[in-house]
């Protein structure tokens, strides 16, 4: 099916991947505009560009948008598009469930941003610390939008996580053993387990918050026997693994790109995989390093500091293995590799500043200061976003059948790299100068003017770089050279099928004998298999019910913000949608 209807009812993992990608890029721009407005306000001391209330909404929505509506869906775009192709499958295990994940994500994203339209955007920061989020201190709809939006987005991530775990465990092509999985698939698998284990705590935390706000319970109300720190524990028990949910896919992308462009296999494949597993595992034991200033006491501080520092070891090992992959190669400096190299160079900085506030005494100075703002952007832009751009450049020809313009790509890379550093490096200085984060204004006499101005200039260079990248991508669709199946001399199975791949991915499921199967095939001169399917291929039929169920959830959530009758109506739509879905193929 084609046209709009085709996209609305699609269950094809490639189309769903593209939907995630487009949505993620749109929200990247939305979050970027929010960032630019904040930088304009902070460019001068005591500025009046935006009001305090608006500024607080901007930083809350910027953080929430970039994490949940930009980086996570962009990562999901890669999971969706690539995992079945890389493991030699025709789709994910549960194609309709996959569509449901996307539509629920979109529902949550729309709900969150609808708050701007009614003038009640969330304003208690992306971490939403209790008891600031209580009805008493945040009486408006703002926090309701936030908690319902996040709750819905959490459902989307959990549904997708189950789907990808099952897909990777069960749908691998014959011979694709675990230690032959492309590293990107490994990092995807680890990420999905992190989502499965990290989202329940925040779900519980949000339910408590919802009960406190809607039904007057006192989970976070000290006057009612509640505990404000309970929220911080639940939030960071999610929030720290979330960092790895954002960054591990980028590590996987880089681990795919480096070998291809160095024309060498990944150095120390098993070690890279194990260190990814270790990072994910340790990630659950470090949440209280976000709470060093809450007065936990010296023993917990020491324990969480030590486990946090341990994470530096597998991370360092990964970086050395990437360098060793490049060592002795024949390095073709093309656009995907530029971004992958940028990832290594910038992520190292984020990691090193991370080691600094892993030390609780040092963190006492850096916590909630601009030093931390610098750190987290080196991890999330320098790390995650550079990885995502590397991946976009690498797999763009596969997904669209068009090559990107190399010259524009290189230009965008240098603009992004320069703009990013001009924007965020000075924030280290601002933090050392005692500037706290989340302030809409500062007086002239504290001496933060210069570096703030530099940072504001930087954000325009960074934005220009991102726009050049997106423009070049859009232009390639009309004017780009046609992409062959295997433009980069790739190693993994997705380069074995045409660009873009047919609906059914593989005419015949290829048996896998090597870790870098396509390279082995090319080396041994084996035939890449039939181009046309030998027999009819059964593909899942399109379904409208994922969209219906997601719409029901959106209606129900809007009801919680307006009229209870809408909650009932929305839930009815959900129930009917699920029922029809269950019996869709009985006719």
């Amino acid at each position, binding site marked *: 099916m084609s046209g709009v209807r085709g996209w609305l009812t699609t269950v094809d993992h490639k189309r769903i991947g593209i939907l995630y990608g487009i949505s993620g890029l749109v929200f990247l721009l939305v979050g970027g505009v929010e960032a630019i407005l904040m930088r304009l306000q902070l460019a001068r001391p005591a500025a009046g560009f935006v009001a305090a209330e608006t500024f607080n909404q901007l930083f809350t929505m910027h953080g929430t948008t970039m994490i949940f509506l930009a980086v996570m869906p962009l990562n999901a775009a890669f999971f969706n598009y690539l995992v079945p192709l890389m493991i030699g499958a025709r789709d994910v295990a549960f194609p309709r469930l996959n569509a449901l994940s996307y539509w629920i994500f979109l529902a949550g994203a729309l709900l969150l941003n609808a708050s701007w339209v009614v003038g009640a955007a969330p304003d208690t920061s992306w971490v939403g610390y209790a008891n600031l989020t209580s009805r008493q201190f945040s009486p408006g709809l703002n926090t309701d939008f936030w908690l319902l939006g996040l709750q819905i987005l959490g459902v989307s991530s959990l549904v997708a996580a189950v789907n990808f775990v099952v897909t990777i465990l069960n749908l691998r092509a014959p011979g694709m053993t675990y230690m032959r999985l492309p590293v990107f698939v490994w990092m995807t698998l680890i990420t999905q387990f992190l989502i499965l284990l990290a989202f329940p705590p925040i779900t519980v935390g949000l339910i408590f918050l919802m009960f406190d706000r809607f039904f007057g319970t006192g989970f976070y109300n000290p006057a009612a026997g509640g505990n404000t720190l309970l929220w911080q524990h639940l939030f960071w028990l999610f929030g720290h693994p979330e960092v790895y949910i954002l960054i591990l896919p980028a590590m996987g992308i880089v681990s795919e790109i480096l070998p291809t462009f160095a024309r060498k296999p990944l150095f120390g494949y098993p070690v890279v995989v194990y260190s990814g597993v270790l990072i994910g595992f340790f990630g659950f034991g470090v949440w209280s390093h976000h709470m060093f200033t809450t007065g936990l006491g010296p023993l917990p501080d020491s324990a969480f500091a030590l486990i946090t520092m341990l994470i530096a070891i597998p991370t360092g090992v990964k970086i050395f293995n990437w360098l060793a992959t490049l060592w002795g190669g024949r390095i073709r400096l093309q656009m995907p590799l530029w971004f992958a190299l940028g990832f290594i160079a910038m992520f190292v900085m984020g990691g090193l500043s991370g080691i600094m506030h892993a030390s609780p005494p*040092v963190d006492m100075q850096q916590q909630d200061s601009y030093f931390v703002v610098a750190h987290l952007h080196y991890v999330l832009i320098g790390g995650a976003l550079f990885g995502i751009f590397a991946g976009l450049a690498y797999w763009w020809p596969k997904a669209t059948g068009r090559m990107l313009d190399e010259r524009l790509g290189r230009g965008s890379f240098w603009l992004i790299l320069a703009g990013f550093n001009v924007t965020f490096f000075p924030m280290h200085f601002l933090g050392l100068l005692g500037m706290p984060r989340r302030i809409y204004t500062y007086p002239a006499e504290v001496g933060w003017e210069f570096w703030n101005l530099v940072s504001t200039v930087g954000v325009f260079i960074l934005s220009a770089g991102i726009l050049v990248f997106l423009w070049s991508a859009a232009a390639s669709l009309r004017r780009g050279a046609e992409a062959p199946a295997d433009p980069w001399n790739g190693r993994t199975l997705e380069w074995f099928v045409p660009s873009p791949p047919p609906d059914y991915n593989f005419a015949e499921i290829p048996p896998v004998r090597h870790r870098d199967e396509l390279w082995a095939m090319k080396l041994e001169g084996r035939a890449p298999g039939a181009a046309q399917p030998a027999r009819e291929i059964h593909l899942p039929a399109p379904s409208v019910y994922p969209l219906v169920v997601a719409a029901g959830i959106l209606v129900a959530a809007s009801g919680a913000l307006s009229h209870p009758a809408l909650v009932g109506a929305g839930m009815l739509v959900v129930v009917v949608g699920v029922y029809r879905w269950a019996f869709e193929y009985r006719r």
Partner: protein
Amino acid sequence: MVLLSAMRRGALLLLGLPLLLLAGCGLDGPQTTVLPRSDLGRTIHDLFMNISGWALLIFVAVEALLIWVVVAFRDRPGRPEPRSVHGHLGLEIAWTLVPVAIVLSIAIPTVVAIFRTQAAVPAGALRVEVTGHRWWWEVRYPELGVVTANEVHLPVGRPVDLTLKSADVIHSFWVPPLGGKRDLIPGKVNNLTFTVEAPGEYPGQCAEFCGISHANMRLLVVARPPGEFEAWARREATGPRPPAGDAARGLEAFLAGGCAACHLIKGVTAGTVGPDLTHFGGRRTLASGILRNRPEDLAAWLRNPPALKPGALMPKLPLTDAQVSALVAYLRSLE
């Protein structure tokens, strides 16, 4: 290990120099963390410099290696097809052990510093209770019978123990030159212990987002030699002098205008919602550190508090110009 340590010192010297230069000319603002003025601040800063040395060493090594590898092994005509190397166990062990060693040399001083900065309160420490409110600081000296707001007076050279509480949401007490921050959490009592080492005025501010005027929740620490501090405390412990002239009309306006409902002035009014104003005239700043305590700033504040501090609980009162100037005279007389 020894070699690594020497390399780290080298890196610190070579690359730390530009940073130190920056610290000399660029990082010496009034709220800076890099020129500590207390024992706590010094312990933290020493540890920070220690870890920064390692960070610099690793940064330079990795970035240099990355650039060198890319330049040295870039594709050029005639470069042979690379060998398919899959890994090397010895190398893997080596580059696991190097980070282990570095982590250890950071972890040990970290744990030492944790226990030092959170040690038991030393005997003879001055106890100060700081309570966070949206958006101002209540400051009490239980042993001295002194209550003030937004200004913390401390003696130099004597340990102080801050008891940190919150009246509403979570705040965080942060005066960067005096060391790290500690949160003020409703339903929990925290403490922060340090000794100020140099007299001076040290600005700070709330570091945990606490609502619309979080940015306007500033404070000032005034550190003075013990003798001067004690003289200040004796003055603060007494009530204000009875006002005369303009100031007396101001007192009438204060009582009539609704101010008394929220503010306490020893021997005059008993409000408890807002800051204690008994010795308001002696303070350097007003409105939790966002304005100087000058007649024109005070008048602007009295006319419309929420315009200067969005969300302020102090409402815009219908005061005439005459009432405002009388109030200014009265409040400034409360020395």
